[in-house]
């Protein structure tokens, strides 16, 4: 959301902090980040196990532990996301930005092009942003809604293979496996989706730090404290 105040020039109103990210959104953000971290590390070692441990099999449970951690983190990831969807309904307007792209608004597209230009060094103008700018919002939508859903569906479909046919996970997500061309392909897409998520993480962290340093509004402190603050009193 861009804030184009009608008032031109300097004004105290332009520096007024706004409460943007409510507590559940912030808590979800950090839980989501933590679960992604655990899921990526454990997931990678499930696909590419560590060098073998010696001794009796009964003395070790290394892969079992990785898988267990992966499943626990998957539940955090999934339940967190469900609660986040709920919060989109009851939270403030910024809580909905992740889920609904206002593609029917011409202004949104204009702002999107502006953001692309801004990050492409084609303009020096930066808009003050309250919630997410259209570029960030699109990235959030594709990576944190679509990709997250894809990871949840494929993940639980694979999880259902262990629980067995007829299990709740099989009934809810088992359809994904034939759709994606079998168990091995599902695993491959799940792994590919992880890499895409990592691409997002790299860009997201960079953008957040960059925005904190170079843009006109707070970024990192906002996802910690919830308040959007501004560095100047211009519109």
């Amino acid at each position: 959301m861009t804030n184009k105040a009608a008032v031109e020039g300097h004004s105290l109103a332009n520096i007024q902090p706004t409460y943007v990210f409510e507590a559940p959104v912030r808590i979800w953000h950090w839980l989501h980040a933590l679960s992604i971290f655990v899921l990526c590390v454990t997931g990678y070692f499930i696909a590419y196990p560590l060098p073998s441990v010696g001794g009796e099999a009964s003395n070790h449970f290394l892969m079992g532990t990785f898988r267990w951690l992966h499943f626990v983190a998957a539940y955090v990831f999934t339940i967190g996301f469900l609660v986040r969807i709920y919060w989109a309904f009851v939270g403030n307007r910024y809580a909905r930005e992740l889920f609904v792209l206002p593609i029917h608004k011409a202004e949104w597209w204009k702002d999107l092009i502006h953001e692309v230009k801004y990050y492409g060094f084609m303009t020096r103008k930066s808009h003050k942003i309250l919630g997410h700018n259209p570029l960030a919002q699109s990235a959030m939508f594709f990576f944190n809604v679509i990709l997250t859903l894809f990871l949840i569906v494929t993940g639980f479909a694979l999880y259902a293979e262990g629980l067995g046919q007829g299990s709740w996970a099989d009934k809810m997500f088992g359809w994904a496996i034939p759709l994606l061309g079998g168990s091995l392909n599902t695993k491959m897409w799940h792994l590919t989706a992880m890499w895409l998520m990592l691409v997002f993480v790299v860009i997201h962290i960079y953008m957040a730090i960059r925005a904190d340093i170079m843009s006109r509004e707070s970024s990192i402190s906002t996802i910690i404290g919830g308040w959007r603050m501004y560095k100047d009193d211009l519109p």
Partner: protein
Amino acid sequence: MAHRETFYEVMRQHGITRRSFLKFCSLTAAGLGMGPEFAMKIAHALETKPRTPVIWLHGLECTCCTESFIRSGHPLASDVILSMISLDYDDTLMAAAGHQAEELLEQTIEKYDGNYILAVEGNPPLNEDGMYCIQGGQPFVEKLRHMADHCKAIIAWGSCASWGCVQAARPNPTRATPVHKVIRNKPIVKVPGCPPIAEVMTGVITYMIAFDALPELDRQGRPKMFYSQRLHDKCYRRPHFDAGQFVERFDDEGARKGYCLYKVGCKGPTTYNACSTLEWNDGLSWPVKSGHGCLGCAEDDFWDKGSFYSAVTNMKVMGSAEADADKVGKVLAGAAAIGVAAHAAASVVSHMSDKSRKEVRHD
């Protein structure tokens, strides 16, 4: 109408004793995962029901399904089953040949219209109007359609009939096509595997003719009784997997100790079949037991999924090039990191130049 003989009568004519017959019934009930009381149900069904003929067609295939079938671990079972089905039509197993053999098909349609089971081994190639597989002067696909029109149900034997198998591998020059994509108006039971396990084949066929019903199928049309679990779920090397003990190379200490073959490409964790429980050759062994990973031969597209010795499958990138998911992922993540670094550098440069021009950043 003339008396239609029962399975039991046919078996007796073929010299199967009553004792062998009952043993076969118990064995089949056990093989199908049913309780002991079902042995008598099977016996009763075979004694009273008129025999359902089975027509066994061969399309584009290697006959490994038949080879597996006639080596059914329990000679008893194979004798019994063969006496039940070879009577009608199986161009590999029957004595008749040429026009005589082809006539049998028409006779079966006449006598048992809508009442016989069509077992298909192999698949029809569809390119060039099916000219890549000609039988009795006509394309196999026409024979298949003709026989399917009059059958009660179809068994798709093996990975050829179920999925396409190696002859359907990219670029699939003959357009070999699995049966369910050619015949859409009949119930089809897929019994994949290259070949399927003999006891699975005899089990499925006995279930269908004894109970006059399809076995319960999973989402992909495979009988649940044999294909509801992965090899991995019942693998005797599973404890090594959970412990984190893997064969890294086929000549290492782990291989000698019988560790898990996951890291040398075993597809057990993604393959649905009964190998780890029924095993092969009368329960003698199966791939993992002999020290080699599963190739995943019962899974769709197993022939086009990259190396048999890699746990991660390949994907197609940029048209025809192939790379595994992690190579693609590492390239993407690497590109993102480089892009971010470049953007950061550009940001610093632009910031500095803005400053030197004493411009206000935000106008």
